[in-house]
């Protein structure tokens, strides 16, 4: 049965839409890659060192996230999960469109970041059986922060913690005591993850450059929390 599925799928009108979106996502990716060059130059001017600049760039592009998603998408097509596949392409498109819209901005609104991390978590959840629970408290204030700050912190939470059906990952974001908090339950991955720690350093540097304030990190056995000063 399995081997015949892809051929059947390609005759389906739905799949044409999926493929079109797929192609669009790829185009967006390369367009961004090109656009990113001038952006990283700008950061270089902001005194960020070359190494963290590279980490930042790679985080923005997130190629393994894209390729893993593509692999899952092909799986969905082969298994005839049209709706889930279409949803993933839509989410991916919206996600990368936000990155593109960020362009050369130094600050973005917290709503934009929320939207972006929600999309990111939705996509990851489609691959990992809804094991990430993201809670975002209502924030009406017009808070701004450096682009991709929340994104990077969410990625870190996913990268460093073990989660599955029995032990989901809980991430909450909100504002408390005039600070933005991003908090997750701690269940460290047993086998060390290749990590440079530059992500957090990079976020800190940006806040220091912008408002001369540092971020606060609370790391213990129960939870991991980052507090961002409000700009």
């Amino acid at each position, binding site marked *: 049965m399995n081997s015949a599925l892809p051929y059947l799928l390609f005759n389906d009108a739905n799949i044409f839409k999926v493929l079109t979106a797929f192609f669009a996502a790829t185009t967006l990716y390369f367009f961004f890659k090109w656009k990113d060059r001038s952006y990283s130059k700008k950061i270089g001017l902001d005194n960020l060192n070359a190494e963290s600049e590279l980490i930042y760039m790679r985080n923005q592009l997130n190629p393994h996230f894209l390729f*893993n998603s593509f*692999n899952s998408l092909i799986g969905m097509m082969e298994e005839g999960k049209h709706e889930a596949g279409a949803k993933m392409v839509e989410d991916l498109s919206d996600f990368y469109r936000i990155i593109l819209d960020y362009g050369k901005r130094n600050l973005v609104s917290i709503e934009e970041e929320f939207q972006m991390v929600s999309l990111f978590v939705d996509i990851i959840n489609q691959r990992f059986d809804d094991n990430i629970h993201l809670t975002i408290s209502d924030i009406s204030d017009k808070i701004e922060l450096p682009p991709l700050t929340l994104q990077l912190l969410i990625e870190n939470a996913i990268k460093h913690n073990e989660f599955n059906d029995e032990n989901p990952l809980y991430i909450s974001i909100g504002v408390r005591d005039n600070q933005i908090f991003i908090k997750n339950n701690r269940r460290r991955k047993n086998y060390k993850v290749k990590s440079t720690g530059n992500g957090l350093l990079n976020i800190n540097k940006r806040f220091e450059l912008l408002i001369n304030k540092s971020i606060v990190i609370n790391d213990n056995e129960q939870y991991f929390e980052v507090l961002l000063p409000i700009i």
Partner: protein
Amino acid sequence: MKIVILEDEVLARNRLLRMLDEILPDHEILGMFRSVRDTATFLLNKTVEPDLIFIDIQVEDGNSFELFELVDIKSKIVFVTAYNEYAVEAFRLNAVDYLLKPLKKYQLKEAVDKAKPVLKQSISNMIENNGVYKSRFLIRFANKLHSIQTKEIAYIYSKNKISYFQQWDGSRTASDFNLKDIEPVLNPKHFFRTNRQFIVHIDSISEMTRFGASRIKLQLRPAINEEIIISTEKTKIFKKWLEA
């Protein structure tokens, strides 16, 4: 080929399994795991050595290179990952191949082929050593011995790890032979391995019907209540064999 899979994402794992069904019908999955921990536990307590292990690099409980610190692995390794930055480390661990996601069938096939040269050699050795194909089988099963002439065999099939020699006269003899070992000692002009389960004599095929886009379904005589489907991969060789 005995296979173990370390992959924490269900969709990715299912894709790999589907591809393996197509390109390597004669495989057996010994275990599938989502974490380094579970894979290590399995490998430390295993009774059968896997031939090949597929490993995703970032899995549920961390980086799977750690597996090599926990277990002395003798099996062939193929990494399957969306990350391109681990290739050097992978080859230091003597990996057979390093495949990037999205996974492609032809690349997986190349990797699998690289992983099985020893098997290929052992088959060719058998043929060389014998020089001729077997004209008679001595079948031992439980405490009985049977001698069957090859010309009496309509087809051979395995079910629940037992191989049955189906004879033209309708009788059937059970054996503990492995189809994999029988295949090379039969004359390929007369016998064809249709899939994991069956080796059929050309004259035992009573009916052929198209099945799906590119597969063929067989009816055999003496009749048997099993589906015999020739995979897409084998259909071409099968047609050639029929015309030879």
